């Protein structure tokens, strides 16, 4: 691949929640800025830009990634999933999202997108996750509103329901 010049914008293409997208970015542009300000997908939030708060967490080719620790050029050709892609249809919520609503697992909602992306990937890989495993996973996110208890409750509830639907 040719060397991408620092001073120019380059075409970046990837799949966002199943839809091909394209935009231009300098090599230094963070994926957070690219998603939010180039593509207008503002559901992914920015809380620290140094990889601690987890608000920006997305899925890149199915694996979790801090979008603030990812350059847009690095995801050329990848499949990106963000919070905008979680609901099964407009006006409906996924099992996980429903559980969050039922348990009041969000207040301001600013941390929520990242937490949902982490749980979505994790529960798919480990549907039997217990509270300890969920707390360990969630330790990669900061939430200042909820005190985490309702998030844990929602995650456990969602896990149970997902297991049921898997067996049904």
């Amino acid at each position: 691949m040719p060397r991408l010049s620092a001073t120019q914008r380059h075409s970046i293409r990837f799949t966002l929640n199943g839809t091909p997208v394209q935009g231009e970015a300098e090599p230094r542009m963070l994926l957070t800025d690219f998603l939010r300000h180039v593509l207008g997908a503002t559901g992914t939030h920015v809380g620290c830009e140094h990889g601690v708060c987890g608000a920006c967490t997305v899925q890149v080719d199915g694996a979790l990634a801090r979008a603030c620790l990812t350059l847009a050029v690095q995801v050329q050709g990848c499949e990106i999933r963000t919070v905008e892609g979680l609901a099964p249809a407009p006006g409906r919520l996924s099992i996980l999202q429903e559980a969050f609503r039922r348990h009041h697992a969000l207040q301001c909602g600013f941390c929520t997108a990242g937490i949902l992306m982490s749980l979505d990937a994790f529960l798919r890989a480990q549907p039997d996750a217990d509270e300890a495993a969920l707390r360990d996973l969630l330790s990669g996110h900061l939430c200042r509103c909820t005190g985490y208890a309702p998030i844990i409750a929602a995650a456990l509830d969602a896990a149970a329901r997902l297991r049921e639907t898997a067996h049904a």
Partner: protein
Amino acid sequence: MKPAKFDYVQAEALDEALATLRAEGEGARIIAGGQSLLPMLNMRLARPAVLVDIMHIAALAEATATTETLRIGAAVRQAALLARPSLHPLLAAALPWVGHAQTRSRGTLCGSVAHADPSAEIPLVLLALQGEILLRSARRARRVAATDFFTGMMQTARHEDEMIEAITIPQPRTGEGYAFREVGRRHGDFAIVACAAAAHATGVRLAIGGVADHPAARELPADSAQWDDALDAFAHALDARDDLHATATYRRQLVRKLGRQVMQEAAACRA
């Protein structure tokens, strides 16, 4: 909080990456998972002229095991290794302490070794197990023992034109036992003290991270009656410092007390 400008090369082959390193010297930085580098770029602590992305070099993405060693390529992510069905017990114990699930899914083992943070777990394990670092430049390849690799705070024996191609870790041997413990302020934080121990028939090799400028290891006698003195000497030798999160005294005390626990545990699982 946005990075300064840099060029970007997505290397498709090792030669391409090495050629860029050779041409650019210290202006080039390898980016693999980016989990240590990106915060530094965002804060403009690091200002490379060019980033060389090695994650598309297929040859680097493999972890291969023989009966003797596990060889981990530069593009192997921490999460990928952790998901392997059989993994060296010390690595398996230490890897969950590396950052968080959300960073392990991107971060590589070799990237952590190259970064050489004094609190990092992977360098510590490498040192405890006497692994090796495979360095490669456009001109040559060489192996450096972990014992010789970490030279200071984020300082290693790597030359500017070299990159880590892989690390190798000896496979667990029968008759050895391993244990790992870490204390940080919060889960996933930089270690205040991290201990990794490998017990064998004639002694225990104990490696300590988070205290000195780089991880340090010592061979301690098998006889636990001698441990207190040996640990005390080790604790003093590490030249612990005070910082925001812990005092030097606390660090030394943890080396003594946790160190002892970890050695006991390692000795107990020698099977």
